[in-house]
């Protein structure tokens, strides 16, 4: 009795074509992507009919969180053609950080208690931060923390276990409290930490960013659609005071129907 032998068919599928497709898709996504920038607060921008795109380079962003905290940051290189990296994002940020601290110390006659080494470490960390918003007085404590705790601080959440720093709600975001100082001629003027930051960004020593800020393309205000006007107004008012009265506002695209 001969057994009927079933012929075994191979179940192997040729994956070559599939692989071709996936590689193509992958290339497409890799080429078109711009990475999401990490921001301390989730902001849904209001929609507008304006069709001007946000520039990729030379922008300083002012982020107003729905809770009313204000953050500043610089995105994009000032000039990519300068090969030695003098105007690269991280080197601009280093200059801004050092300038801002120096100006704050000069105007308030206070010293931020940081050793030279700590300052250098903080500058390096700041250079990698997309958005920053902590009062000057808390800067030493902020940069001693681990990066997760720094993120939690900016997001207004409690710090992780074992953190000895106490973060009050007023320590999140850049404060707008008046700072009185005397200029060279002895006149008493007022400024605030936000103005110090904006001036430091403007004077970070690269012409392209400075030009863009003067034309108004270089300052982008990003606020949530449900943020109250008095919160945004304090930002706009301060920008007007330091004569950056041309700026852009970030919006999402609105279709013509609505």
């Amino acid at each position, binding site marked *: 009795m001969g057994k009927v032998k079933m012929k075994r068919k191979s179940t192997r599928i040729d994956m070559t074509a*599939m692989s071709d497709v996936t590689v193509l*898709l992958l290339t497409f996504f890799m080429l078109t992507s711009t990475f999401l920038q990490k921001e301390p607060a989730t902001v849904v921008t209001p*929609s507008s009919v304006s069709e001007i795109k946000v520039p990729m380079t030379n922008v300083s962003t002012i982020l107003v969180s729905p809770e009313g905290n204000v953050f500043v940051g610089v995105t994009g290189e000032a000039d990519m053609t300068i090969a030695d990296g003098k105007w690269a994002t991280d080197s601009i940020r280093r200059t801004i950080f050092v300038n801002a601290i120096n100006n704050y110390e000069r105007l308030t006659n206070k010293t931020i208690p940081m050793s030279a080494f700590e300052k250098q470490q903080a500058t390096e960390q700041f250079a990698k931060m997309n958005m920053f918003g902590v009062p000057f007085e808390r800067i030493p404590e902020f940069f001693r923390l681990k990066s997760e705790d720094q993120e939690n601080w900016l997001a207004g959440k409690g710090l992780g276990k074992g953190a000895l720093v106490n973060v009050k709600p007023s320590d999140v975001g850049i404060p707008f409290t008046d700072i009185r100082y005397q200029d060279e001629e002895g006149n008493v003027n007022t400024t605030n930490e936000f103005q110090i930051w904006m001036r430091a960004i403007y004077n970070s020593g690269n012409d392209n960013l400075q030009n863009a800020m003067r034309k108004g393309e270089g300052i982008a205000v990003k606020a949530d659609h*449900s943020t*109250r006007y008095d919160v945004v107004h304090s930002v706009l008012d301060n920008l*007007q005071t330091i004569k950056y009265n*041309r700026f852009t506002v970030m919006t999402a695209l609105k279709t013509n129907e609505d």
Partner: protein
Amino acid sequence: MAEIQQKESGGKKKKGAQKKMDIHVDFTPMVDMNMLLISFFMLCTTMIKSQTLNITLPSNDKNLEQKDLSKAAESEAVTLILSSDYDDKGTVTDNTIYYFFGKPFMEDADGDGLLDTPEDPSLGVLHAEKFVGDAGGVQQGIRSILHKRNEVVLEKIDSLKKEWRRPGSEMSDAEFEAKAKAIRNDSTISRPVVVIKATPEASWESIISTLDEMQINQITRYQINTINDVDSTLILDYIKKQQSQR
């Protein structure tokens, strides 16, 4: 992964003939990895870049007052006052936009605590509107009000647009833009001067929408200003009148 199969070719083997090799490479792990990478890139990218809106505010210098705007004819002035309502979670439920033309009418001769209606009710009386947009190609809400105020300019731009879109038209895009700009800034046409005032509780969304309406209605003369006590009196009076009507 990759395997080489040698085919059995029976007994009839020729001497010196090369063995036929069948090469299979299994691409499944490669596809797996690619899929993972694709999903990573899809999740981490922003395909739509956000848009921006250019704003120019007057300088905060107190000695530099905006003279040309205060000089504007009363009939051309439009004041918009924005206000918003929120629910308990802080999300916007409603945006209201109060408006009046010309100077506010602030007289209360009969002493009933409510402001009187002036002889010419088209000027100085506060009304309220909403952002509605268009319905079936017809402007609704605040858009229709602003549209009416800037009708001459809009009509001229519309006819210019028709001319530009006409088949066989020789007008270039740049030419159209230049001509439209000339119409928008033509001082011989009566164009509105809009003063946008926002109450502290107005939402950011409502301000952007108002600026949008300016763009949609081709209004070039507008400014953002702070609210004063006259404006709040008007709003309170409006609300009181609404309540007494019910």
